[in-house]
């Protein structure tokens, strides 16, 4: 690629010399009047071109055929001026606010997009509001190359699993969110309508200023602010949306009569009259036909000379498609800024969010397993005994869980400009969270296996308080072609959290008014309580330098001191350097300026950290409750002694990332895009390693040490084409595509019994994931299946596992030793997709807009754990109808069994998790301005929207979105709450 541009450059130089007439002039910024150096001036006809000098002046010879001069400059709207009769042309260029001139939010500041050297993607408000969900991150699915957003569950109020550029740790891999300058782990307390932009910082250059917290990527959320309106008035905005959620699809299970037939194979004679066996569809019984989802937002905003204000209040309510799983939330947002003097500003940004959620009854897997041949109710309308895990309807009836929480986050800041180019800013941010939950199970009896003998009550309280004080000094300076800015800062942060839980049994009454610990039986009272305090003190520096808008340079440095570090490694340094080259601003590119508007190369390298580890692992803690038992009556004598040895050498995981990329704009910037390639290596990953027995840590105990290494690499591509037809139709087509390759490079010396981590517990004793060197993190691990044993001869001549019979799955003898043992288990899949992609199409015509967003991922697998786990005889998925029933009948579906060898971890349970989905389709109509003016409305629009309209996938479960926050065991479906489709009608009015 680079070579091509050199050739182009030479050919551009070679075209000089056909001059007949010279035109001189200057180019200035239309708004500030400053001269603009480096602007490309060229003729479309002959292709001659020059760049403006340091003072914004140019002189260009043109030939007779050249009837116009074009002026183009990164970040500004290009202009074309007729040359006829002119020898001097003075041009004023305006900043192109809609594309590359845009200002992009970066770490601790903003930057012109054209000056960026890091890999940063911005998502705008209109895209964030497209998906009706409690967590704004849901809207980012398919929007940002390299950002994977997957629902962890369809339960109302649940937060998605967000992974940026793969998974680089065995611990918490979630991104860092920065909301109004305050660091947080989740943004589920924000209403989409209060968000202005979400900026995704991907590479080390973009994230290095977040130091020890940037390794998993950083997402900076900017909330809406007041701005001056043309009429000087305040703006009222009201949005309402009402939608219904529906189950996307049902799982194809055996009907009651089919089940009876299969069951009779297992236990002959169990069902004597198949025709009279009931066909209960448990999915129909536990899922509601539809469940409403509603959003209402009101905001008031504006600005005066002295102040800017934004006030928003929102209400969100999502009912569950399973009863007792509702979520509702109120959001309050206040962003005010006061300009005390011309140079001094102060302000507050506040968010407060109370919410309430019910803990969905745990019936999804239950409905899957429950016998379809059993009925839900007895003749007297009481709950009937249901085999296969109990009666799901009774479980719903007797589940009572409610969580109430309040989250508030915000900051106060003051900012002063002084001397020339200096700004000092001090900001005090905070986040408080309070959460309380109550769970109550009454006394009930459905069957011997489904009953509760004494009532149970559990209460939990958790709270955290987090403050952050940041002081930064920044400096901006432009000397001729040299543009320079620098930032230095000192920040300190402390986080305190506490948990209190209590439980009791046998309440004096079951009335909700008595759901308090004091109403219970003291004999059963238990309590737990703990707390943690962590703090960080940091120093940060950044320098940006650009020369002539062509050469860009950025360096970042952050020094973090953390209480989580071992005492021997209290401070750590993180940093990055990046360069950029706006090739299109080079003189030699003048000849291509007629079609190539922007081309910028970027490259960065740096190191950032992951601090999401427990705070106490550096210490040898004293374990309380190591009690002796003494005396003739045998009583407890309380004891305490040293627990697992602390690791005072503990330090943070470090991710080194190398990123190269380029941005392009073609054909009057109708086609724009970005390409990035990265290699991200995380070393010193914290992993639990055994220590020698004689050290005294005990059996099965591992201690946390910095040992493992993981590499992620990938290619990301984003492109957008937008244009208007002459007939008034405007359209745009965009897409993004990202690959990720994840590989474990090192595991440390000894983890578990060998150098691997087994995880992915199915809850029945089987572990189905395996993290080892050479494979991806959390790979599925089990036997490979090669058909079904067709007959005794087949069985006799094949390697077998103890207990296998004809009709059972035939496992592959991976190590060729003639028998099937655990040593034949191998990697059989991965939850990490090979690539993810999204694309969108928007068409507009006279106020009518149609938008479609698609999302897909490919190459990942799902472990259908709910099918593998057979706690007792359960219902089956429909393919069991094709079971092996004699030689030649089936080579894929084994004979029906209720447990045993066919349910050992194998690729029989691994399914393709690739999917392609119409994420949203929106048809909107904006009422014409002239109508609205009559009714004193500024803007008004209505829309219809479908979300998750269709999902194409081979997966047999409700949804192929099976994600868990645990990087070592994701993609295992043990009965996840289904993600729904939503059909909504909404309107916006602004006064």
């Amino acid at each position, binding site marked *: 690629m680079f070579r091509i541009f050199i050739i182009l450059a030479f050919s551009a130089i070679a075209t000089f010399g056909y001059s007949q007439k010279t035109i001189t002039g200057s180019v200035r910024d239309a708004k500030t009047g400053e001269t603009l150096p480096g602007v490309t001036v060229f003729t479309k006809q002959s292709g001659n071109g020059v760049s403006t000098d340091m003072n914004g002046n140019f002189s260009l010879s043109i030939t007779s055929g050249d009837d116009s001069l074009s002026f183009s400059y990164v970040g500004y709207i290009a202009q074309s001026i007729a040359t006829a009769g002119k020898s001097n042309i003075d041009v004023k260029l305006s900043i192109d606010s809609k594309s590359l001139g845009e200002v992009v939010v970066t770490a601790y500041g903003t930057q012109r997009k054209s000056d960026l050297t890091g890999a940063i993607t911005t998502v705008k408000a209109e895209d964030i509001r497209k998906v009706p969900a409690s967590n704004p991150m849901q809207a980012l699915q398919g929007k940002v190359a390299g950002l994977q957003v997957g629902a962890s569950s369809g339960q109302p109020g649940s937060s998605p699993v967000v992974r940026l550029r793969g998974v680089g740790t065995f611990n918490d891999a979630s991104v860092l969110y920065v909301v109004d300058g305050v660091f947080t782990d989740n943004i589920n307390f924000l209403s989409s309508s209060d968000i202005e932009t979400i900026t995704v910082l991907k590479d080390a250059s973009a994230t290095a200023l977040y130091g020890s917290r940037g390794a998993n990527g950083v997402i900076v959320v900017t909330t809406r602010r007041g701005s001056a309106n043309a009429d000087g008035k305040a703006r009222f905005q009201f949005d309402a949306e009402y939608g219904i959620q529906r189950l996307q699809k049902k799982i194809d299970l055996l009907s009651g009569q089919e089940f009876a037939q299969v069951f009779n194979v297992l236990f002959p004679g169990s069902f004597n009259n198949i025709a009279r066996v009931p066909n209960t569809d448990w999915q129909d019984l536990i899922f509601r036909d539809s469940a409403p989802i509603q959003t209402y937002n009101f905001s008031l905003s504006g600005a005066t000379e002295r102040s800017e204000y934004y006030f928003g209040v929102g209400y969100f309510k999502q009912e569950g498609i399973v009863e007792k799983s509702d979520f509702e939330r109120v959001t309050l947002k206040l962003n005010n800024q006061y300009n005390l003097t011309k140079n*001094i500003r102060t302000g507050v940004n506040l968010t407060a969010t109370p919410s309430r959620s019910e803990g969905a009854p745990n019936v999804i897997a239950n409905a899957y397993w429950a016998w379809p041949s059993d009925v839900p109710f007895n003749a007297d309308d009481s709950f009937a005994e249901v085999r296969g895990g109990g009666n799901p309807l009774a479980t719903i009836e007797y589940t009572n869980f409610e969580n109430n929480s309040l989250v508030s986050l915000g900051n106060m800041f*003051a900012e*002063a400009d*002084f001397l020339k180019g200096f700004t*000092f800013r*001090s900001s005090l941010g905070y986040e408080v969270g309070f959460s309380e939950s109550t769970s109550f199970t009454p006394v009930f009896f459905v069957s011997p296996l489904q009953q509760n003998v004494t009532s149970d009550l559990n209460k939990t309280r958790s709270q955290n308080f987090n*403050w952050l*004080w940041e*002081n930064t*000094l920044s400096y901006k300076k432009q000397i001729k072609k040299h543009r320079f800015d620098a930032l230095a800062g*000192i920040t*300190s942060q*402390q986080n305190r959290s*506490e948990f209190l839980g209590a439980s009791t049994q046998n309440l004096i009454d079951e009335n909700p008014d008595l759901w308090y610990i004091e109403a219970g039986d003291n004999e059963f009272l238990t309590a737990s*309580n*703990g707390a*943690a*305090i962590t*703090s960080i*003190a940091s120093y940060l520096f950044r320098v940006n330098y650009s020369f002539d808008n062509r050469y860009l340079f950025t360096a970042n440095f952050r020094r973090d001191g953390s*209480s989580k570090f071992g005492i021997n490694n*209290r401070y750590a340094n993180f940093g990055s350097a990046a360069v950029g080259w706006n090739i299109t601003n080079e003189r030699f590119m003048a000849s291509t300026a007629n079609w190539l508007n922007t081309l910028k190369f970027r490259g960065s390298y740096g190191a950032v950290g992951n601090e999401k580890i427990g*705070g*106490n692992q550096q*210490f*040898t*803690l*004293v374990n*309380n409750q*190591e*009690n*002796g*038992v*003494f*005396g*003739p009556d*045998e*009583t*407890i*004598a*309380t*004891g*305490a*002694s*040293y627990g697992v*040895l*602390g690791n005072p050498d503990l330090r943070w995981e470090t991710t080194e990332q190398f990123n190269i990329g380029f941005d392009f704009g073609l054909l009057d910037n109708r086609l724009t895009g970005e390409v990035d390639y990265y290699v991200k290596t995380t070393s010193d990953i914290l992993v639990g390693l*055994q220590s*020698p*027995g*004689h*050290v*005294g*840590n*005990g*059996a099965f*105990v591992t201690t946390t040490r910095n040992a493992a290494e993981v590499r992620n690499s990938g290619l990301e591509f984003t492109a957008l084409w937008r244009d208007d037809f002459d007939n008034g139709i405007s359209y745009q087509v965009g897409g993004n595509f990202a690959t990720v390759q994840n590989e474990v490079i090192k595991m440390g*010396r*000894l983890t578990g*019994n060998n150098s691997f981590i087994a995880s992915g517990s199915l809850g029945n004793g089987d572990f189905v994931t395996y993290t080892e060197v050479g494979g991806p993190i959390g790979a599925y691990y089990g036997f490979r299946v090669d058909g079904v044993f067709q007959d005794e001869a087949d069985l006799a001549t094949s390697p077998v596992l103890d207990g296998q019979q004809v009709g059972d799955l035939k496992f592959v003898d991976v190590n060729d030793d003639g028998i099937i043992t655990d040593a034949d288990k191998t990697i059989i899949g991965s939850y990490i997709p090979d690539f993810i992609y999204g694309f969108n199409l928007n068409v507009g015509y006279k106020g009518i807009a149609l938008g479609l967003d698609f999302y897909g991922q490919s190459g990942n697998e799902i472990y259908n754990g709910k099918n593998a786990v057979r706690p007792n005889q359960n219902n089956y998925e429909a393919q069991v109808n094709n079971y092996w029933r004699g030689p030649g009948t089936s080579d894929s579906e084994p004979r029906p069994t209720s447990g045993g060898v066919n349910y050992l971890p194998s690729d029989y349970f691994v399914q393709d998790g690739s999917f392609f989905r119409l994420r949203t389709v929106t048809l909107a109509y904006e009422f014409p301005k002239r109508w609205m003016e009559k009714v004193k409305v500024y803007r008004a629009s209505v829309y219809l929207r479908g979300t998750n309209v269709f999902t194409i996938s081979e997966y047999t479960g409700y949804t192929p979105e099976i994600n868990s926050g645990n990087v070592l065991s994701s993609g295992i479906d043990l009965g996840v709450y289904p993600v729904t489709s939503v059909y909504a009608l909404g309107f916006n009015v602004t006064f």
Partner: protein
Amino acid sequence: MKFQFSIPTIFNCTTLLVISIALLTACSDDFLDNPPQGFLTDSQFPESAEDAQRAVNAMYSDLRVWQIYYGGYPIVDIMSDDAHKGSNPGDGANMTLFENYTFGANIGDLASWYAATYEAIKSAHVVIDQVPAIQMDEATKTRHIAQARFLRALHYFQLVRSFGDLPKVTALNPDANLARSPKSEIYNEIIIPDLIFARDKLPAKNEWPGADLGRATKHAAQALLAKAYLYTNQNQLAADEAMGVIGSGLYDLEPDFSNAFLPIGQFGIESLFEVGALPFGAGATGGNQFANTQSVRGSPNRGWGFSRPTLDLINSFEEDDPRMEATVIFLGEVIDDVLIEGDGNTPDEILDANGNVIQIETYNQKVWVPGTTTEEPFGYNVKELRYAEVLLIAAEALNEVGSSGMALMELNKIRTRAGLDDITEMDQSALRAIILNERRHEMALEQERYFDLVRTGNAPEVLGPLGFVEGKHENFPMPSSELLLNSSLTQNSGW
């Protein structure tokens, strides 16, 4: 952290910045010092007399850890001619490897047994290393340290007779790459000096306040010292120490053999050292899974049913030895009004290829706790040292030093309690065999048989048919995970 904010000062931003830098640097070291909440750390404990008491109590908690000594099942009984793996055939399949002597150094059970025992040693070192510096009553302090040294000796004794040469850890925070010290050094530099110290400094059973019943005593230390001498062929010393215990007059045999194991005999006249436990889950609530592992499986549901008494053991008893019935639970038996039906998934009989019965479903009656629930056996007190064993040690040691007459006196106390005829054999060699056999019947399923056969050189003959290989199975292997983790560690011969 102070936060000051006022309009006038903000004008002088550079000053503020300088101040804030000063503030931050000044306090940053304290600021980053966040002690764990709800936990003390090793630098803060033990500091007081109360702390010292807690550290001492914690050592006894380690004795209830399931993996300690022989991995709960208990492995050394399953390896002896006294017991099979037990339970149903599919359960705890790893244990079959021990029963057949086909296990390798990589088996996890060994690593966890080894690690759990060293964890208990660490708790003893918390006391031995840290308590001396505490300002407190010196007599109490000495008593604390003496308990710690008794327990350290007990742990090392169990380790050394199982694994042979060992990393010799004598203080907290040992080097992770510690090489092994010879077996003799473990005896001579840790076990024996610790036990002499404990014998001299610990109160006798009747000198402890009642509430402290169950703590290490002078005579428990003396009895273990006798055993350690016996294991190191210092027979005269062994005899002297054993006779010291006998001469104390504080101990005797329970009139009824069964009572030595039942709740009625807890901390009783025959008990030199046992591990107090309560019928709750394992851990802080005081339970011990030892008996749960071995108790009757099925109906009544008391446990898992491991360590099944063998037909060989059953048939080896003299015809009217009541200890057989007291040691073995048979199906159909009624104990304390509870009918033993056993486990449906466990075959009542196992036949060999020729149709001979080679195993029957039986259970270890020594861990029987009256009752029918699964929880009650968690309250079973493991008997680490019984007076009966002291008599047997005395008999054996006396016979070895040529005092067979005196040996018979002690041996026949055991015989008398069992209602059996006195032994009159005076020939040293013949009496040696009789004493070994008496040990088998008195102490069946008490984790002694395998070690007795090894130390007396009878293992190849008796255990050979089960898979015992001479020159190899005298010691357990160093767990292979330990060899990976500790680069200085060497493997035992034969492994």
